């Protein structure tokens, strides 16, 4: 069994003749490596949990595509979860993903509250925030400068001579 494991996992420490014998047997049996068993042995699942508000939105689907493409490139699979921007659901998803032994979590949501932070920090797996602002800044994150971007848009309108510029804003609680 140890030899089979070495072959399946690409360990070079196997004689070519033995490797061929194992690979032939695998093909004949239509054997597929058991991802669960493999995860148990290596303590890694090469699975990443991705929490986003809503995949059906054009906005998040582009983000998800970027995530998936790079995950595939680095041989990770993703478990994609929709949170509907609902705090209870987000925290529940974090815990469910951790129970599934994901190797990391990518989180996108409206706000990272202290309660979110507590659950995320409990994980001992890396967490990255995507397009999600966190005031305390203690999670790694990838963003644009939202404040400056809005500032630029308004300055452009002011330069055109507007003195009554309205704004249709989302919730101001959503940091």
């Amino acid at each position: 069994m140890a030899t089979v494991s070495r072959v399946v996992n690409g360990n070079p420490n196997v004689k070519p003749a033995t490797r061929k014998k194992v690979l032939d047997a695998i093909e004949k049996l239509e054997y597929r490596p058991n991802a669960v068993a493999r995860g148990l042995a290596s303590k890694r699942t090469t699975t990443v949990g991705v929490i986003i508000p809503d995949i059906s939105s054009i906005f998040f689907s582009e983000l998800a595509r970027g995530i998936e493409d790079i995950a595939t490139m680095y041989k990770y699979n993703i478990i994609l979860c929709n949170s509907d921007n609902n705090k209870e659901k987000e925290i529940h998803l974090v815990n469910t993903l951790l129970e599934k032994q994901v190797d990391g979590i990518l989180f996108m949501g409206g706000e990272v509250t202290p309660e979110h932070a507590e659950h995320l920090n409990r994980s001992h797996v890396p967490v990255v925030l995507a397009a999600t602002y966190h005031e305390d800044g203690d999670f790694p994150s990838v963003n644009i400068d939202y404040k400056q971007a809005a500032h630029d848009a308004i300055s452009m309108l002011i330069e055109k001579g507007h003195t009554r510029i309205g704004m249709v804003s989302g919730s101001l609680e959503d940091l």
Partner: protein
Amino acid sequence: MNGYQKFKGYKDALASGGQTFDESLIAIADYTYDSAMEAVSQLLDEGDKPTAIFSATDEMALGVIHGLQDRGLSVPDDVEVVGFDNTRLATMVRPTLTTVVQPMYDIGAVSMRLLTKFMNKEDVAEEIVVLPHSLEYRNSTK
């Protein structure tokens, strides 16, 4: 959606342009198209009409444009409109939408790459990554 950050940027820009903040020029919506249409009615009914409207997302900007047009106003002649995100929606409306470009695909790709670095215990030079934004000019502004 970083609603507060965008609002703060709006307020700061007014201040640096020497303009006073007027609460009646702000309408809060819930990021849906419909809520933005209602928000526009609110802006038009309260006091002096705005001559330009900044929307926190493209989807809401479409509600803003259609809400204005339903009231017989012309975009951009009566009111100029600027969105945020630069999703496909920006080119699926008439007039096409001037908007802030948020590179969503890149944010997804870079955040996943950052995560793989942590998971594979590679060196990480910067943990807080800020990608560049820009403005895409189309026909909802003059």
